[in-house]
């Protein structure tokens, strides 16, 4: 049942050719395939993270009726490569009063925390790297490492601004993890399992079978998840910990050069991962809204393309929200989380449970159209 890329590829005949190439050692071949796929996924996500910065400037530019970056490469597309090279050649300064060991460790924790979530992202029903049957839960757990990295980054650089930013950032990330976990819990209720394979297989068919339209509570849970996810990646109206005007870019004030680059890369990839999880959980990642049989291009690649377009749509909404909504104060930030989001998330969870028991598992569409 757990469909990973290795088990998917093993249906083809070139797999057996490869097998005896590797002296039919099953583990080694799986390791090689996973290594290649991991490098491809990491390269893709790094470019998407880089393009995220480019898209952010371009979209914010045309929201404010000005031209974004267009010098480097056609339409400024290679802007993020230029930023990368600039990061590499900047001097790497560490404040003399800083705590050397933690200052060095914080970006590594952030990077490991974000890259480990890529293992579970469901690109398509066949191309999942690791279809663990604790999939979604593992993703939430590993992304809590980033909150720790934010705190350690803020603490280690021993400047009042970054210390305050680190404390606020860590408390914001951990407090917004509760609404996200509760809305993901509502989806595990509906899907009857935590692995992305079961969640996706429950959303096949037309747009009506997506979990967002399963019942009104799941619909609200999508928005609770969206707001919580935006706050968890320090984006949009919740980016107080790194607010330029107040905390002089918060916890990574003292980080220069490539260390700051790692923090920024981890942040942008995490926004992409969070949007990807949003599409997989609520919008049936990889499943077309209308079921026409596309046999011209193999279904797996079509599903990957559909998954990536849906994620980029959500990414666009996140960037759009950043440049239209004002920034929240600290106490508003915390009261929104604890007094509005968490009660609504618990209400959704209870609602989903009652809905499942009352209509024993049938979605709104099944009741209305009366199918299966």
């Amino acid at each position, binding site marked *: 049942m757990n469909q990973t890329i290795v088990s998917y590829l093993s249906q083809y005949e070139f797999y057996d050719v490869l097998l005896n190439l590797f002296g039919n050692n099953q*583990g080694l071949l799986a*390791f090689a395939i996973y290594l290649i796929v991991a490098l491809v996924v990491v390269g893709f996500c790094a470019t998407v993270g880089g393009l995220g910065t480019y898209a952010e400037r371009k979209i914010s530019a045309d929201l404010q009726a000005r031209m974004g970056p267009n010098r480097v490469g056609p339409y400024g597309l290679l802007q993020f490569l230029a930023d990368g090279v600039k990061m590499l050649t900047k001097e790497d300064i560490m404040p003399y009063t800083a*705590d050397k*060991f*933690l200052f060095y*460790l914080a970006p590594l924790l952030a990077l490991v925390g974000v890259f480990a979530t890529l293992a579970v992202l469901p690109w398509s029903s066949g191309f999942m790297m690791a279809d*663990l*049957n*604790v999939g979604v*839960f*593992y993703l*939430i*757990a*590993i992304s*809590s*490492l980033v*909150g*720790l990295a934010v*705190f*350690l980054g803020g*603490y280690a650089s021993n400047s009042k601004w970054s210390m305050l930013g680190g*404390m606020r950032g*860590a*408390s914001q990330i*951990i407090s917004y*993890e509760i609404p996200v976990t509760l809305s993901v819990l509502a989806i595990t209720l509906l899907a009857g*399992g*935590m692995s992305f394979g079961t969640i996706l297989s429950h959303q096949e068919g037309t747009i009506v079978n997506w979990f967002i339209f399963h019942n009104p509570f799941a619909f609200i849970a999508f928005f609770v998840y969206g707001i919580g996810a935006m706050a968890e990646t320090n984006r949009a109206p919740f980016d107080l910990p790194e607010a330029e005007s107040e905390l002089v870019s918060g916890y990574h004030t003292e980080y220069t050069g490539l260390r700051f680059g790692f923090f920024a890369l981890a942040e942008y990839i995490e926004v992409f991962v969070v949007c990807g999880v949003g599409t997989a959980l609520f919008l049936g990642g990889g499943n077309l809204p209308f079921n026409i049989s596309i046999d011209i291009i193999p279904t797996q690649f079509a599903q990957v393309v559909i998954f990536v377009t849906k994620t980029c749509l959500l990414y666009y909404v996140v960037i759009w929200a950043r440049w239209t909504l004002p920034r929240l104060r600290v106490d508003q930030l915390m009261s929104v989380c604890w007094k509005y989001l968490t009660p609504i998330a618990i209400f959704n969870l209870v609602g989903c449970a009652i809905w499942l028991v009352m209509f024993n598992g049938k979605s709104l569409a099944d009741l209305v159209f009366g199918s299966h």
Partner: protein
Amino acid sequence: MFIELLFLTSALLTVGSAIGAAVTRNIMHSCVFLLGSLLGIAGLYATLGADFVAVSQIMVYVGGVVILMLFAVMLTGGKDFVSRAQNLLGLAPAMGNKWTYTIGLLTALVVVLTNVKLITNVVKAYPAKVIGNDFPSTVNQIGHLLVKEHVLAFELSSVLLLGALVGAAIIARPRRQG
């Protein structure tokens, strides 16, 4: 073969950072070393086939307890946390004089001897089967166990969490300097 590799790295990570947590004098470093050993223990759970327990260990300990400890260290006078106690051959901060250590060594010897005797019986009784009884997916079985046999414990744990929440909230509430 991959499993032995994973077992070795997580065992080394666990034991190494546990000893690191004991040896470093800066409390923040020992918190980060505790984090390392907790991640190692999660890896050990993974090699034991307990995938749900490994992930809940990461979620609760790494995402919660360690951050809470770092907050507590910051809230209780971040100033003086390099412990200045005299230390034992420059390694672990020492406590007590040479008598305590001799008695400590004697008890340690007794404890280790009994444990070794115990473990030898266990080793003889259960030889290292490579993959013994493997469970297809632990999450569903844990769910069934929680709902059927351990229902009382499941409900009581919510009462326990409520008690912990209310108690800690009362204790940590800012009051007039009492």
